[in-house]
């Protein structure tokens, strides 16, 4: 009997580090980080020095230091409306815009007019705000999120409901996929994780859907439900990011819930103390830095930072 108990105890002790490794880390709001912008952020990315770059609704690009101080601000020239930005390995800033046209549809006898995306453009700037390159993204109708992976600019095209792998040098689409992508409310966000693995916030399926850079899908996680491990609302999550330790951050709107999942997406920890960041069905910009800090933007121009709880 004693021998059996000893074996059980030894097995439990051996499993403890493994269990700790698979659990999501706990986070808290960093009250010392206070950033209030005049215009709300549409998209954010963090550069190699830990500064946040945000594309604002006003069309300006702003750089904010890790201490929360504004370092740089410039307004890129662009066709269409500002929509997203991406940073490459050299910290150059790619600003993307989307051109829309009004179209009228008939639904149940009612005429409704909606702005439909028809074209997307890009412009690359260095950290001083000097334009390096620009052009139209041929075959792309919109850009609601963008990141670099394996040397290609990966674009979330909500108009075509596809993830597009774009070769800026060749000026054409290299690959396009929509398998497993379920969108809603015109929201389409994704992130690039370790080994250039792509994670899509497939809010129409209440899932986080991984993709390999080859375009093939991996096993996603998530379902609609009431527990902290589930996604709530009419469609969620609206944004996703992967932390350096491979934990996955998800953001839900209405009501705002920011959670950190273990790398396999099995269990989640809620970050407490975050107020409503948006009202209604809207994207919530999210970015993470190399230290594992999490940045979130509200539709009132506020940026908050969440840090690991000790």
């Amino acid at each position: 009997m004693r021998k059996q108990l000893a074996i059980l105890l030894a097995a439990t002790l051996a499993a403890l580090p493994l269990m700790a490794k698979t659990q999501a880390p706990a986070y808290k709001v960093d009250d010392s980080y206070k950033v209030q912008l005049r215009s709300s952020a549409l998209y954010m990315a963090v550069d190699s020095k830990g500064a946040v770059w945000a594309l604002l609704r006003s069309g300006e690009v702003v750089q904010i230091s890790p201490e929360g101080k504004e370092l740089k601000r410039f307004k890129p020239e662009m066709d269409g409306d500002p929509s997203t930005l991406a940073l490459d390995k050299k910290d150059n800033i790619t600003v993307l815009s989307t051109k829309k046209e009004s179209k009228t549809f008939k639904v149940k006898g009612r005429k409704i007019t909606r702005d439909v995306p028809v074209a997307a453009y890009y412009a690359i700037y260095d950290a001083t705000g000097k334009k390096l390159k620009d052009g139209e993204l041929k075959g792309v109708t919109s850009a609601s999120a963008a990141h670099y992976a394996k040397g290609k600019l990966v674009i979330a095209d909500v108009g075509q409901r596809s993830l597009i792998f774009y070769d800026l040098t060749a000026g054409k689409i290299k690959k396009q996929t929509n398998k497993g992508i379920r969108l809603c409310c015109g929201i389409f966000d994704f992130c690039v994780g370790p080994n250039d693995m792509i994670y899509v916030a497939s809010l129409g399926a209440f899932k986080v859907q991984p993709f390999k850079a080859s375009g093939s899908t991996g096993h996603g996680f998530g379902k609609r439900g009431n527990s902290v491990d589930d996604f709530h609302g009419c469609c969620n999550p609206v944004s996703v990011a992967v932390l350096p330790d491979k934990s996955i951050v998800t953001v839900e709107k209405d009501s705002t819930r920011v959670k950190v999942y273990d790398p396999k997406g099995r269990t989640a920890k809620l970050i407490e103390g975050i107020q409503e960041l948006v009202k209604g069905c809207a994207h919530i910009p999210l970015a993470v830095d190399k230290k594992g800090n999490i940045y979130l933007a509200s539709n009132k121009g506020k940026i908050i930072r969440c840090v690991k709880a000790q």
Partner: protein
Amino acid sequence: MRESPIKRFGILASACSAVFLLAGCLTTSTCRTFETALPYLDNEPCASCPPSKRTLVLTLAVNDIYCADTACSCVRYIANRKYGELQNLLKKKYNIDLRLKYFIEPYDFDDAIAARKYDGAISKPWRVYAVPGTDSYRRVVDIADPDGNRWLWGIVIVNKDSKFKKLADLNGENIAMGNKCAYEKHYSALKLLAERGVKPGKITWKASCLESVGILLDKEIDAAAISNYALEASCVVDIAQKDDFRILAETEKIPLTSVMVDTGKVSIRDAERFRRALIAISAAHAEGKNFHGKFLAPTHWCPSLEALKERGEKEKE
């Protein structure tokens, strides 16, 4: 201008007939559980009710699929009902102070109902009764959707190119169905399958029509039981069109949306006063600027015994 005695008698007779007919419906229906519609106190037509001097304050929780304050923005063109104008009219003409708390998230609404924080609710009736301890809620009026429909039902759909042509073809197949908190796509759908002798090989339980439609499009399942409105007035419109599917069968019909009061908190007389005010406003302002709905006398409905027994139980996995 005074109405002639014959005309007045005619109006009174019509009103009485309507009330007696409804009362007849309520009492003669076979109900193994309890009638959810608030019974009528008397047959006095509402138009002659003088506004009470006593202010009636009612605070209701709202989770209404057609309300602009609780629906998803992707269906805002159809889910555009607003209650502000109604609140003004109730206060001004009937001395009823209606206070509303909007819940976009149904699970938050459930928690609020469970906590018994409110005098009533505006929602799908089962959303309230699915919460244990809510038997004292009664439906004061039903609300029609913007097209005048007052019913909610489940539909069993397959992909347009599916080999399944009729419900019986789904014997042994994989069907997605709704959770217990959605009566029409859970209990009504199970009832439909049982009545038609259809035994699915597997049931995939999903909390949202959006999830069910998604996995149907991906052909992970063979059919899905979803809410009748889902293809036109839910987030499903963002991933599919009505024409992408065929409807194999429809379930029984139950009330879509009701204004309900907790008679454990609000007296029957006050509930009746509230009902009369709502119906009178609806008659006079049916095409109200921002309401986009119509109040109707509540139809008969009692939830099934099985559904009531399962309240508070864990969802099926």
